[in-house]
């Protein structure tokens, strides 16, 4: 059984290799090869899952040792895979949702001549992500970690002819690199502390070292998580990442990339449990991001960016939960899975809408689409209900649990965190309702629209490159795109219930992450009630603002907060001014210094030597007599010298 683990990764990797090296002759079938191999990986995953279920809870950890990767005295990095309940969950999520997105892309990318390459990148993405979750030591995890970064770089910048896309891709990679730096330092710390960075020994000996060290390691891991999961302060790349094709957004947000951070934290539970102060930081980061993303989501008119904001805040929920320690780990993962379903559904829906609307992304130019694309409407609607946590749907269970856990943290922290979570729930309800209303209800604002495209800063430039801005004819997407949406919708409806009824998920994960009931000041019922209230308020406000009165096609100037939120709460501007500008000045001045100072010293010496010799050269006036004088003087000196020698 263990030997199958490698195949999980091998299948998509093979796909990537074949598709990228294969060349044009594969253009015709490339996308099917990619999809097939993703599905194959999913199949293997299912087989292994079945096998795990067949074992007793403590037997559910399989490891496969392939070969020794970097053998240097004392530094042993092996290519070893570890499949336990946690990684199994991820494997199923990644391959499952991933395959669906592959299928969807077949339709979505139909008209793109570089579709084969696209599928190659998708497969690479899956492979890297699988490597990340299956690694048995941190260095191998780092391998997958950076692999994910690369794949996201390639996919976000897939439409490379768009400068915006290329820049967004570069930005994503760089911000991730900052996180990676954290991971690298964490690994170095582990090696210096434990002499190894394999999961087993590190976790088992986490208790033997000082809390200070553990905190340092944990914080570095958190930095890494922030980078990948787009948590404040490293969240800036997520919004721009929308430059990529919509399936990519779905993949990044739902199945693969952003979940990696949560995985890292949960996986390193042993380390975090030993460092409470670090955990506090984690929760704070989670809470802040949760609100940050939600606020940003409210202001965006670009449907994808609005969804991106929601992703940010949902991941915030997960990180918050993960920061709560054993109380929250399980729920973090659970929310991650459910979120994987409905967020993928939402993005695919958004993609479907754009597909029907000539790649228009500005929601203010949508409206009343429900009768033109019913399937999309229904699936999207179910996803919407799921994400706002409508009772009975998956989001309800997972999010509710997290809010409870937040309160269960106890003390003022508990109240603050719980409050933040509740507030987040309200805002989520608001902006998702907004998206829903703007897109599928109201009058059809896309008819006889004003010609000139408005120039808000956050209007998606993607529209220029493919398709024209002629009046669109909304239509339902082809079957190959709708099927995945339907499947995901079903998942997002039933998932939560399936997991929570009888705490299935809890028992499944507990052996890995451990679990402890906190002592919540509030009963579960009160929390749920509160959540419902917030939800209702959010929806109501949204209805009041967008449902009742007509929506202007051109966004109103809006309040200060709105404008700030449109600009990602000015966080990008901060980066630009401080980092980009500062960096440019620094490098430019350094280049100047290198030329003038260091080179100048060298050339200066050369010049001075030249000048000196030029001056010496004047002594050679060519008159024999002056030479004679010097000779005579020299002779005199010699005589003097000899005499002195004799004298002394």
């Amino acid at each position, binding site marked *: 059984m263990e030997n199958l683990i490698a195949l999980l990764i091998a299948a998509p990797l093979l796909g990537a290799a074949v598709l*990228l090296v294969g060349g044009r002759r594969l253009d015709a079938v490339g996308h099917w090869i990619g999809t097939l191999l993703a599905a194959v990986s999913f199949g293997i995953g299912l087989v292994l899952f079945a096998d795990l279920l067949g074992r007793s809870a403590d037997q559910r950890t399989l490891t496969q040792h392939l*070969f020794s*990767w*970097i*053998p*240097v*005295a*004392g*530094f*042993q990095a092996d290519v070893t895979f570890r499949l336990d309940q946690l990684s199994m969950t991820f494997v199923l999520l990644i391959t499952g949702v991933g395959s669906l997105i592959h299928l969807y892309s077949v339709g979505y990318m139909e008209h793109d001549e570089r579709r084969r390459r696209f599928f190659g990148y998708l497969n690479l993405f899956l492979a890297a992500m699988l490597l990340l979750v299956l690694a048995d030591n941190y*260095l191998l995890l*780092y*391998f997958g*970690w*950076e*692999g994910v970064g*690369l794949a996201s*770089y390639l996919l976000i*910048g897939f439409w*490379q*002819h768009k*400068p915006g*896309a*290329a*820049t967004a*891709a*570069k930005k994503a*990679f*760089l911000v991730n*690199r*900052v996180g*990676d*730096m954290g991971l*690298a*330092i964490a*690994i*170095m710390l582990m*090696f*210096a*502390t*434990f*002499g*190894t960075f394999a999961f087993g*020994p*590190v976790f*088992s*000996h986490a208790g*033997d*070292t000082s809390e200070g*060290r553990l905190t340092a390691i944990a914080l570095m891991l958190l930095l890494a998580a922030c980078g990948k999961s787009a948590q404040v302060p490293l969240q800036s790349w997520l919004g721009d990442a929308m430059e990529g094709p919509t399936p990519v957004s779905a993949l990044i947000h739902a199945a693969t990339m952003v979940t990696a951070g949560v995985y890292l934290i949960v996986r390193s539970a042993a380390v975090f449990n030993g460092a409470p102060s670090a955990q506090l930081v984690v929760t704070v980061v989670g809470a802040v991001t949760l609100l940050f993303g939600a606020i940003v989501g409210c202001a965006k008119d670009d449907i994808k960016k609005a969804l991106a904001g929601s992703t940010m805040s949902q991941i915030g929920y997960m990180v918050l939960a993960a920061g709560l320690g054993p109380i929250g780990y399980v729920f973090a993962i659970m929310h991650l899975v459910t979120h994987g379903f409905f967020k993928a559904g939402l993005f695919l829906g958004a993609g479907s809408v754009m597909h029907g609307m000539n790649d228009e992304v500005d929601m203010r130019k949508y409206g009343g689409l429900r009768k033109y694309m019913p399937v999309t409407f229904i699936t999207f609607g179910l996803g919407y209900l799921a994400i706002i946590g409508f009772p009975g749907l998956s989001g309800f269970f997972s999010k509710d649990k997290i809010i409870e856990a937040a309160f269960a943290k106890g003390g003022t922290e508990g109240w603050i965190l719980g409050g933040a979570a509740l507030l987040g729930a309200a805002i989520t309800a608001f902006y998702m309702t907004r998206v829903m209303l703007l897109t599928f209800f109201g009058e059809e604002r896309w008819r006889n629209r004003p010609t000139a495209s408005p120039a808000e800063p956050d209007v998606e430039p993607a529209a220029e490159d493919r398709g024209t801005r002629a009046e669109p004819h909304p239509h339902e997407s082809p079957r190959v795109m709708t099927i995945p949406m339907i499947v995901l919708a079903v998942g997002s409806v039933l998932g939560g219930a399936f997991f929570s009824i009888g705490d299935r998920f809890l028992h499944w994960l507990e052996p890995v992450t451990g679990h402890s009931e906190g002592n919540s000041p509030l009963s579960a019922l009160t929390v749920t009630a509160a959540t419902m209230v917030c939800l209702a308020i959010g929806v109501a406000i949204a209805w009041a603002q967008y449902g009742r009165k007509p929506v202007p096609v051109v966004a109103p100037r809006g309040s200060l907060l709105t404008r700030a939120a449109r600009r990602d709460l000015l966080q990008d501007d901060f980066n630009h001014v401080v980092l980009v500008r500062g*960096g440019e000045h*620094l*490098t430019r001045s*350094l*280049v100047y210094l*290198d030329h003038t100072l*260091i*080179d100048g010293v*060298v050339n200066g010496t*050369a010049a001075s030597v030249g000048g000196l010799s030029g001056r010496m050269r004047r002594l050679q006036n060519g008159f024999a007599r002056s030479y004679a004088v010097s000779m005579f003087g020299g002779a005199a000196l010699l005589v003097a010298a000899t005499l002195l020698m004799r004298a002394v």
Partner: protein
Amino acid sequence: MSFPLLTATAVLPAVGAIATAAVPAARRTAAKWLALAVSLGTLALAVTILVRFDPGGARYQLTESHSWIAAFGVRYELGVDGIAVALIGLTALLVPFVMLAGWHDADQLETGSRRWRPTQGFFALILALEAMVIISFEATDVFLFYIFFEAMLIPLYFLIGGFGDRAHEHGEKAASTQRSYAAVKFLLYNLAGGLIMLAAVIGLYVVAGSFSLTEIAQARANGSLHMATDVERWLFLGFFFAFAVKAPLWPLHTWLPNAMQESTAPVAVLITAVVDKVGTFAMLRFCLQLFPEASKWATPVILVLALISIIYGALLAVGQRDIKRLIAYASISHFGFIIMGIFAMTSQGQSGATLYMVNHGLSTAVLMLIAGFLISRRGSRLIADYGGVQKVAPVLAGTFLIGSLATLSLPGLAPFVSEFLVLVGTFTRYPAIGIAATFGIVLAALYSLVLYQRTMTGPVKKEVSAMPDLRVRELVVVAPLVVLLIFLGVYPKPVADIVNPAVKQTLSDVHKTDPKPEVEAAK
């Protein structure tokens, strides 16, 4: 007396150089093929060395020893340890590719006259350089090493000054002046270093009464040869200065950007991927073995300088407008890593440094050669003159991307392994410096991706719209290197196994052991 394999490896290219130079002007192509054949033969010999070398065996193997200048006890002593084997392999491997890449570089100088034979000269010089580099990797006699360490400058001087890059924003005239400036600068820098080293070599002879590395190292080890502290330090500085110039360490680095910028891509590859390695290699072999105490004494300063090189080189790379210059500064940053790994005095650090020498050779070769192809197509070295190449020449762009990713040491590509080893090795002994050096990986990502984005992505520039994709010859050059990059990134064990024993011995020379982890969790 068995077959002198090492001598053969060095002599073959030397003879080949003479033969190539002797080919009449009309038979230009024949000269090219002859040179290529010779370099391939050398590669075969290098592979033989690799096979015959037994990692578990004696420290120096395949040794040869003959009396040469008896008066000064100078001996013709050759011998290879794991590090040398790896680097000889790298050299012998790169040269054929370099030749293929520069197949037509000398043609533009052809005037058709009978007496003027630039093509023959170009290839002969490359072969001569190869011979000298190889023998300086093999030499275990300090004086012998010194001679070839210096002689290397001669062919390289002509390769830079004579066959330099014709592409220049201000036209042919400016190009030629720039070229000669670069060549002279290169020569003066290295000569200065060499002369100081010569003084140190003589001093060493005065102190030790022998030039033989093995003898002196042994004597140092068993304490029979005692050096006064300050004497040892001065000698160490003399040696180190020369090596620091050759493997440009801040602030002795400014010759490299000019040299790489003005020489054609293949020559630039030879400079940074092969010749500069002699410097770092010599630090590992001579500085540490001959002057262990002084090495330890100088370590802090050198580490700081290396750190500065890393950050400084990366920052300057970000600020460059010229593709080759950018790559040059990136190399400076990487050499910072190598030197840091050497002087971290941990087995991870030094193994990493040695692997780094090999991997950096490969990655720079890929990046620089493709950059060369790019420049030869467009006729400009300025980054701003490119854009959207990815659209018209996907294969070129793809390989270029792989090269850039290797430069930013992405896991899965060879440089990552070495870089991470160096970082870990440094961190375990000097945490602060290790962390500071980690910033280098972010900056590396910055300049690599900026380079790729500005040249390859974005809307297609008019000038590049007709650019052809990689030709077969170019593909033959690039593909194997790329494959090797990936292979060594995923499975570096073969090289590591060869290197590790030598590193262990070097560490024992300086009486250093790896710091123990705080918790013995490995057991």
